[in-house]
């Protein structure tokens, strides 16, 4: 089945609609080390996202998001994919998802890494929607880097 602007089922895969209607891990929870707020300035979609780390492990990703089915489903999949993983593994998933989204439909998704995230392969062919799919992921990346600074403060080099 070809992905064309008139073929909606390739864009709105069942998996995406399921995540949209029943988002995983939605809501803002304590504790957390970093909270970020990201917006998509072209459409106004917004997300507030919190990250809770336990050492190197992502123990919770909680969020409140306002946006379209693609952005909502994407953050739900993110929650599934990175919670419980190490920060390094989570970042590897992020890289893989970003590559898929920016691949203009030329990147073959790795189901072992992306699981439900492979449903977003069709989105890559709708340039206007790629930002929707990436909104939550970019917020997560930002939150994790902030949380790492909090939990692993850079050493100042000051002799005690």
């Amino acid at each position, binding site marked *: 089945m070809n992905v*064309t*602007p*008139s*073929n*909606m089922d390739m*864009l*709105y895969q069942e998996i995406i*609609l399921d995540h949209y*209607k029943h988002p995983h891990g939605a809501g803002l929870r304590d504790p957390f080390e970093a909270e970020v707020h990201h917006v998509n300035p*072209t*459409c*106004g*979609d*917004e997300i507030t996202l919190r990250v809770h780390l336990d050492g190197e492990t992502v123990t919770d990703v909680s969020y409140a998001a*306002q*946006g*379209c*089915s*693609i952005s*909502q489903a994407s953050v739900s999949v993110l929650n599934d994919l990175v919670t419980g993983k190490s920060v390094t593994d989570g970042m590897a998933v992020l890289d893989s998802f970003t590559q898929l989204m920016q691949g203009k439909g030329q990147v073959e998704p790795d189901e072992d890494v992306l699981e439900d995230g492979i449903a977003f392969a069709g989105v890559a062919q*709708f340039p206007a*929607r790629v930002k*929707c799919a990436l909104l939550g992921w970019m917020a997560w990346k930002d939150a994790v880097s902030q949380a790492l600074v909090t939990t692993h403060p850079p050493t100042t080099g000051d002799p005690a």
Partner: protein
Amino acid sequence: MYDVARIREDFPILGRRLSGDLPLVYLDSANTSQKPRQVIDAIDDHYRQHNANVARAMHQLGAEASAAFELGRDKVAAFIGAPNRDEVVFTKNASEALNLVARVLGETPVGGQARVGAGDEVVITEMEHHSNIVPWQQLTQRTGATLRWFGVTDEGRLDLDDIDTLITERTKIVSVTWVSNMLGTINPLDVIITKAHSVGALVVVDASQAVPQIPVDVAALGADFVAFTGHKLVGPTGIGVLWGRYDLLASLPPFLGGGEMIETVTMERSTYAPPPARFEAGTPPIAESVGIGAAVDYLSSIGMAHIAAHEQAITAYALGALQEIDGLTVVGPKEAVDRGGAVSFTLEGVHPHDVSQLLDSRGVAVRAGHHCAKPAHLRFGVQSTTRASFYLYTTEQEIDALVEALHHTKKYFGA
């Protein structure tokens, strides 16, 4: 008799087929209008036969291009009833026209005084496009003046109840949209202009959505500045218009510095050309002036009163048909009274992005998002809306196609 089928024949793009061999249903004219062949041909002919730079090339083509460029100004001036052709300043779009006014009103002309300073107030409204909000925020921040604004009623009208406390002796500028790009509301400018002038304030009108769809006579309107853009009135992108009262323009300092805006230049200082050249630094939008001239000729040949009547009728038809859909809520005036041809709405359970994507899959082009009017959306407690907007070529069949596609959208998302 308004012959919409005949008009559509002038717009080549309206015959396009989209993905899936679907006919185009273009309902995004408030965003940008489509172009008739008369405009396309005029621009094409200019580049093929008359292209040269203006006002400086002493050869035959230079003379032709200069004459063509200035003819565009004459046509626009006549179209909006400007008493003097030199009151028409070309910019690159309406945003630049509004920025130009907001910038120069805060600057001090040689031997004069800035129009806006610390302690002064600028009044706008909650229903403005960002391009009539941000430049005034910048002006007031730069000068120490205060920004105030009219609210919007639940119905989507300007709340004029506090006009006497908003527009006071401290008010130096009132800037207001004529027709809201999001709500569709046509504002009662006469009341605002009268009040503003009674306290000595200048009035700037954002007419981006007005000039394309209603007859405009700036002399009768009585405002001090009027801004609009070419591409929304079947003209090309890349050209906007600032109309200003000549005495005012002549009292204001320049906007951008460069070629064509000077009288003379030495290494120490420059003196400036009179309006409109003072505000048109650099090579101007030449082919675009030819294009906007052809556009206003085209609109005039049909008649702005006829276009306004068509817009009114098609908007009434759309408001009726849309509001029969369960779960659809129009944001803005719900009847076609004092209302332009842009209808924003929400569809329960489906985000506007998804609505527009589904409509696009049926060949129906609308806009989804905040339409560069975030405060107006916030006022109605929505983050975004879907907007269908109509123009002289819009048909009832296209509205029917929109309604059918919305039913399909609801079914698709189980809403």
